[in-house]
């Protein structure tokens, strides 16, 4: 218990020293405060922004797009991963495609998405879904491979119906790896959604807000406040998903993904 308190204390001290150093550097004029405002100003702006209705609408739009992208990526990734894991021909055909498409930087698709999809939320959702599908898909395929063949054969010998094998054996077996994949995807999707809003314009979203404040007005305090907010949200989602994973799948220690 006391060890825990000591660790928490050290974490708080670490944050305080980091923020203090940043603040001091700004106040001493080491970094131009107009370009890199001190943390007190940034945190103040976070509070002010959260009270602004239009900013809250931006946040809701970003959050919804993120949720749709992660949900879609999970469904596509798990379904495709199960198919690729179960049907060798499909795997032989699709694996090269995945290997070529996965390293493609998702932002490179933004110009294409803008031309094809117009200027609505569908752009950010599509691009984020593209980026977020790979971790789920790849973790699913690997997990299907890692299932003990003895269990599958046993189920087959006892003539367990296929849907029951899927529900009772395959899905529970791959769940921890899929959860890790979703956690990675969630974190990637946050950054891609916000980044797409920033680059592709559109009309609403946190990235769009940061673009307007940063590129046109030069309000770096508002940009950094948005950045901080997104980073905290990203961190909070990751921690929450990790907790959920630990609680619902106590048999598998989640792998640290960074």
């Amino acid at each position, binding site marked *: 218990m006391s060890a825990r308190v000591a660790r928490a204390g*050290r*974490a708080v001290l*670490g944050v305080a020293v*980091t923020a203090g150093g940043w603040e001091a550097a700004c106040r001493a004029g080491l970094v131009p405060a107009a*370009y*890199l405002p001190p943390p007190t100003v940034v945190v103040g702006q976070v509070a002010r922004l959260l009270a602004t209705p239009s900013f809250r609408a931006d946040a809701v739009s970003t959050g919804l797009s993120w949720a749709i992208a992660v949900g879609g990526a999970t469904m596509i990734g798990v379904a495709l991963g199960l198919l*690729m894991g179960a049907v*060798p021909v499909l*795997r*032989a*055909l*699709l*694996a*090269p495609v995945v*290997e*070529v498409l996965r*390293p*493609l*930087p*998702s*932002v*490179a*698709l933004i*110009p*294409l998405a803008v*031309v*094809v999809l117009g200027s609505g939320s569908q752009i950010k959702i599509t691009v984020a879904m593209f980026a977020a599908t790979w*971790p789920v898909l*790849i973790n699913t395929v*690997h997990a299907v*491979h890692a299932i003990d063949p003895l269990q599958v054969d046993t189920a087959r010998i006892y003539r367990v119906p296929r849907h029951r094998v899927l529900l009772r054996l395959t899905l529970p077996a791959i769940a921890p790896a899929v959860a890790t994949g979703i956690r*990675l995807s969630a*974190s990637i999707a*946050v*950054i891609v959604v*916000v*980044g797409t809003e*920033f*680059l592709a314009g559109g009309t609403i979203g*946190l990235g769009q807000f*940061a*673009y307007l*404040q*940063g*590129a046109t007005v*030069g309000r770096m305090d508002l*940009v*950094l406040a*948005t*950045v901080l907010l*997104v*980073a*905290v949200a*990203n*961190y909070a989602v*990751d921690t929450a998903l990790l907790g959920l994973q630990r609680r619902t799948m106590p048999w598998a*220690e989640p*792998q*640290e993904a*960074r």
Partner: protein
Amino acid sequence: MTSPPDTSDRTVPSTGLHGPDTARTNTTQGRRTPAIARGAAVATCWVSLWQIATTLSVHPYFPTPLRIARSAVDLWFSGPPAHLLLTDQVLHDVLPSLGRLVLGWSAAAALGVILGVGLGRSRYAYDYLRVPLTLARALPQPLLVPVLLVLFGLGPSLTVACIVLGVIWPVLLNAMDGARDIDPALSDTLRVARIGRTRWVLHIVVPAAAPRIFTGLRISLSIALILMVVSELVGSTNGIGYRLSIAQATFDLPAMWAWICLLSALGYGLNRLLLLAQHRVLAWHPRLGQGTT
């Protein structure tokens, strides 16, 4: 956190999606060719399918692969013979982009490994820096471009700064975790044996952390590519991202597809190179060291 280093790789698999069967055929040199031939056949199959689908649909936004290839030749390989047929776009856009990418990524990698290993072996550094580091890892890097733009100005230094600041955290955190996870029995034994400090770091700590370091390097490579494109789309007057935005603005769809294909090829090729390096460096590792790509 407590997972042994050799399972860490499973979150971001290094090898492709081929099953264990492919892995086995690849380790024996003699059966390598069929795997390559099979890959070529599958690739041909997909490209022809793409060609047929785009020919049938005749949609201006989806040019045929042949049309894209012709555009790529015009863009990159129609230069004067003195430049080996390479065009100005290769010399003034592709190569500078690549240079910034490699410079930014390797600087971040070197810094990340050194700091990460140092912090990982320190007793309390992790406790103190946990929150700032994980927050830095969670930053939406593209949104930092305007801030970096005013700090570094338009130009190559912006791209390099973006890449370094975005890419250093995964390397640092993974190196730190790798260095923290060294078996205490091993470190105690070596302390009793009074092994020198440099030898301890170079021969024990770095190799033990290497699998995690490579995981971090692979994640950071893909982020580096993204940030190269983002920073060039926003604040550059040359580079691949800049050309991509020009192609979009002028509705030159075949050129746009050609640049996207180039980026995909770059991502694929660089990833392959990194995997080759990993297989070399981690040759001793039972699972990660095998040439299974």
